[in-house]
């Protein structure tokens, strides 16, 4: 594949108009996307792009082959048809499949615009680029550079290619052991046991990153001695002082490789250290995507639906194909991140709008949070909240009616041009409206599927809103209050949230019992007694916990470096921050083998396991109860050839077990 080939196709005139118009509509709706370059590719090229994570040039590795293989099969045998791919870059590059119907293409384009807005505004995407400034992400270039470097190492006659491949494998097993809440810093942990990238003067860290120096240079100039001088004297009590979350960085700094011939640990080759850092940078780059998947996909699904469905971006004849498209994406059973995301955004929109309405109503003389039931007729209110007719259906013959709408809703200039026939109002009615006009037009609370939302408000929420209102007799009538409503509150708030939140904070803040009930979410757990998965809870706190388990730390257990000089013999001690859910021990052992390759000396992992006696299970089955597992501390040690497991007394693992949240949601009398 090469970009050159796309150049020609790029001008596919058929799609130029939808691309341009989608951008204009997105902006009218309040979005601020990065510029997007659209490319047309065929089915195989699409699969290839997806297999490579959205970029064409990556380092050589069998995983890309595996991913490609898997996708081809899914496409053949399953319904997993790939629609689009867009990467987080400025400008973004979006790839569309040439064989898709126009309706699909339009859906994809609107979807892509929303993604591009998310990339441009969500601060977690900004973290990677903070040192360089928003305009110079150029992820594609970075990944390509890495690919080239690694290929060069592989071609180097002094370096065995298989060794390079194995080294990459080793690092990849730890790709999620980064500290994703910190800004990416190339100099993190640089320069010795006591140096911590963050504590190193912030300015200095930033400047170092800006300089974009290679690690070799950084180490030469800012070596241990120099840094220690900065820090002052005094050996640290433990190493690391506090448990280190960025395990890869720690290994890069303090790891060694085991030399078979010499029979001991020796320094890394420069290429080894370089590869660790490159892959670590990539991990940080992709971390933002992984951390915001639900939000991002939900965001794109929401705006796609708004543009395609409500704003009829899809023509009348394309609409059925579009409905089909949506069904395929959102309709698969089980937990679907697109669906969860979209539902949550809609919930956010509705709750914000509801709050705004109630805020105004509670300021009407005579209405208070105590007497709402008696003084407010929600059905009436809902009727009044309907958008005015002229706003709802706009056609070229109805422009006069549009002209009479309040100023804030109407784009006067566009209306003039429409009258002169320069704007196709029948096809693009939104052109004559402003952002506020569109927000009014698509007001969420009056949509058919949301009609119960307003009156469903719970008493505690009423109280929460009403209790601290100081000016609570501002309006003389309900009408007056309704006039004052800001109909764009919902969208405004959504945009704020898409800036600041990630999946964990998004779920944590907005998932409520109302949401869980309305959308019928539940948790399930494995029952030893029943020998299968069973529904465990429909309580929103539990649902939230389970979801957070899947999204916190990329859905992986948190592993930290506890001690770099364990047993006083330079052994590595990793600790699993136990939260009620066990590690997959077999996987952990296999991963430890790789960690050994990166440390050069014996490696240890401290964790907690749950065991259930066979006998207890039988007893429990008979009594139709769930057996109680026993928690036990465990230390796994690998010295390069054998594994050793040792039980640890509770005092030794107390620290890692300390957790205010237990992610196990099995109720006490579960299957009784």
């Amino acid at each position: 594949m090469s970009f050159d080939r796309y150049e020609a196709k790029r001008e596919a005139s058929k799609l130029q108009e939808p691309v341009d118009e989608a951008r204009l509509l997105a902006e009218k709706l309040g979005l601020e996307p990065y510029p997007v370059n659209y490319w047309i590719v065929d089915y195989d090229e699409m699969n290839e792009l997806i297999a490579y994570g959205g970029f064409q040039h990556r380092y050589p590795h069998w995983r890309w082959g595996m991913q490609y293989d898997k996708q081809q099969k899914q496409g053949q045998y399953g319904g997993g048809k790939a629609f689009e791919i867009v990467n987080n870059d400025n400008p973004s590059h979006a790839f569309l499949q040439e064989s898709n119907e126009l309706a699909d293409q339009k859906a994809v384009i609107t979807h892509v615009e929303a993604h591009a807005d998310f990339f441009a505004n969500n601060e977690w995407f900004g973290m990677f680029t903070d040192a360089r400034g928003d305009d110079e992400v150029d992820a594609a270039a970075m990944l390509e550079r890495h690919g080239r470097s690694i290929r060069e190492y592989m071609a180097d006659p002094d370096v065995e290619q298989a060794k390079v491949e194995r080294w990459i494998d080793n690092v990849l097993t730890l790709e999620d052991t980064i500290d994703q809440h910190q800004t990416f810093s190339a100099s993190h942990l640089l320069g010795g046991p006591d140096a911590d990238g963050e504590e190193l003067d912030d300015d200095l860290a930033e400047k170092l990153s800006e300089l974009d120096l290679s690690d070799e240079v950084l180490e030469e100039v800012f070596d241990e001695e120099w840094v220690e001088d900065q820090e002052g004297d005094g050996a640290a009590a433990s190493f690391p002082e506090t448990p280190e979350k960025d395990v890869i960085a720690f290994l890069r700094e303090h790891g060694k490789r085991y030399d078979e011939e010499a029979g001991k640990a020796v320094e890394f080759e420069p290429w080894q250290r370089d590869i660790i850092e490159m892959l670590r940078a990539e991990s940080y780059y992709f971390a933002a995507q992984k951390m915001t998947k639900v939000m991002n996909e939900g965001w794109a699904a929401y705006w796609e639906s708004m543009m395609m469905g409500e704003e009829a971006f899809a023509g009348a004849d394309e609409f059925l194909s579009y409905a089909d498209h949506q069904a395929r994406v959102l309709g698969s059973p089980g937990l679907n991140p697109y669906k969860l995301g979209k539902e949550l955004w809609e919930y956010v929109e509705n709750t914000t709008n509801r709050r705004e309405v109630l805020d105004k109503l509670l300021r009407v003389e005579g209405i208070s949070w105590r007497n709402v039931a008696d003084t407010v007729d929600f059905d009436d209110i809902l009727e009044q909240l309907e958008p005015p007719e002229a706003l709802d259906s706009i056609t070229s013959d109805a422009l006069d009616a549009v002209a009479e709408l309040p100023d804030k809703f109407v784009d006067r200039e566009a209306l003039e041009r429409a009258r002169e026939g320069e704007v196709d109002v029948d096809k693009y009615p939104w052109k004559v409206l402003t952002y506020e006009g569109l927000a009014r037009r698509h007001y969420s609370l009056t949509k058919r599927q949301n009609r119960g939302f307003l009156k469903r408000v719970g008493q505690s929420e009423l109280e929460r809103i009403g209790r601290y209102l100081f000016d609570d007799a501002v309006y003389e009538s309900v009408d007056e209050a309704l006039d004052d409503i800001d109909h764009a509150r919902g969208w405004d708030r959504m945009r704020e949230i898409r800036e600041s939140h990630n999946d964990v904070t998004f779920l944590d803040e907005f998932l409520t019992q109302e949401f869980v009930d309305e959308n019928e979410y539940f948790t399930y757990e494995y029952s030893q007694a029943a020998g299968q998965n069973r529904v465990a809870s429909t309580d929103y706190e539990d649902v939230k916990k389970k979801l957070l388990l899947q999204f916190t730390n990329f859905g992986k257990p948190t592993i930290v470096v506890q001690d770099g000089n364990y047993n006083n013999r330079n052994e590595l001690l990793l600790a699993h921050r136990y939260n009620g859910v066990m590690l997959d021990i077999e996987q952990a052992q296999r991963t430890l083998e790789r960690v050994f390759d990166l440390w050069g000396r014996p490696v240890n992992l401290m964790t907690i396991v749950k065991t259930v006696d066979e006998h207890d299970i039988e007893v429990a089955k008979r009594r139709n109860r769930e057996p109680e597992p026993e928690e036990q501390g465990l230390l796994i040690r690998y010295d390069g050839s054998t594994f050793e497991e040792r039980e640890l007394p509770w005092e030794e693992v107390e620290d890692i077990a300390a957790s205010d949240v237990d992610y196990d949601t099995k109720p006490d009398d579960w299957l009784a």
Partner: protein
Amino acid sequence: MGLQDDLERFREVGEKRREDLADFIQYGDLGQSGKDDVRIPIKIVDLPEFEYDRRDQGGVGQGDADVGDPVGQPQPQPGDGDEEGDPGEEGAEHEYYEMDPEEFAQELDEELGLELDPKGKKVIEEKEGPFTDLTRTGPDSTLDFERMFKEGLKRKLAMDFDEEFLREVLKIEGWGPDRAFEWARGENVPVSKAWIDDAYDDVPRDERTTWSSIDELEENVDREPVQQKIRREGIKQVPFRREDERYRHPEIIEEREKNVVVFNIRDVSGSMRQNKRELVERVFTPLDWYLQGKYDNAEFVYIAHDAEAWEVERDEFFGIRSGGGTKISSAYELAEELLEEYPWSEWNRYVFAAGDSENSSNDTEQRVVPLMEQIPANLHAYVETQPSGNAINATHAEEVESHFGDSDDVAVAYVSSEDDVTDAIYEILSTEEEAEQ
């Protein structure tokens, strides 16, 4: 370049990672396979990571459900298809490597180091194979027309030339038949001198200087390639020759069909708990597949017994559990009866029994052993599945072993855990192999 290389790399890694047969038999999930279709899970190759224990993790679902309701398998999701995130995100999944019993048997041979060649009872059947033999004569209906046509076409192409053009060549000023012939030869046109001479005579005198040079001719007249000419004139122009005719015959294949009947006998009495039953399943299922793979025609009979014996279907066989005591001879008596359907002269026979070695007193010595001697078979086997080592009164296996000793048609194996399963299978199969040697 990039993708092809990476696909190649993947295939290499994948080949090494398929769950090996021994692991599959001993610890794997046999439940996904059927009688004829062995499905071995392959973990879609992926690198290890620090991950949660899948079971312990639980999950979230959507739907109208009450606490305690069973939940189905989690489905693959969109976002597996068009995500822009790191591909490595989704964990390993199971796919199955499917093989038929024949392949299974071959693999097991390799893995266990066996080379069992089923012998004995063969029935020779003549079958008509594919129509691949060719002769020069035969009934019209078996004429290989395509071949004949191709030969004719080749011939025509070899002989044909553009006559019109050649005639024009003869009209070049200063050229004559000799020069024209030279030119034709140079162009590989398969024309004879005689033809040129004749053609030259036919050219009217005043036309013999129509063209000043070959170049002028070529500029003004198009040559028609032979294929086009054939197309234009139709295939009737393709000459068919007698010597091109070929007639097709079916091959006669002699097939030797090998028959086998396998009797699976199991103690289903009260003492045979879940873990013992599972061990039996792990030994018998691969044996059945193996034999099915080695023989062309395999039949299976399943007998369950406690103090009495009765015949059952395959799907019930491993799960049944009854209450009573144990009398192993009842099963052999029933087997003897049922074996009348499968005469020793025509059928290879395997009689496998399994249990925890418990039996009513004297039954082994007085009835089972004689019955085993009486029932002719390629191989008798007893598999003792006793996880906790020996129990009192559980001596059946020992007794059989001491009685039959090194006999080459009786095998006894002891299985106390999954780890022993492949050894047991080897023990049983190699007994017959030794017999062959």
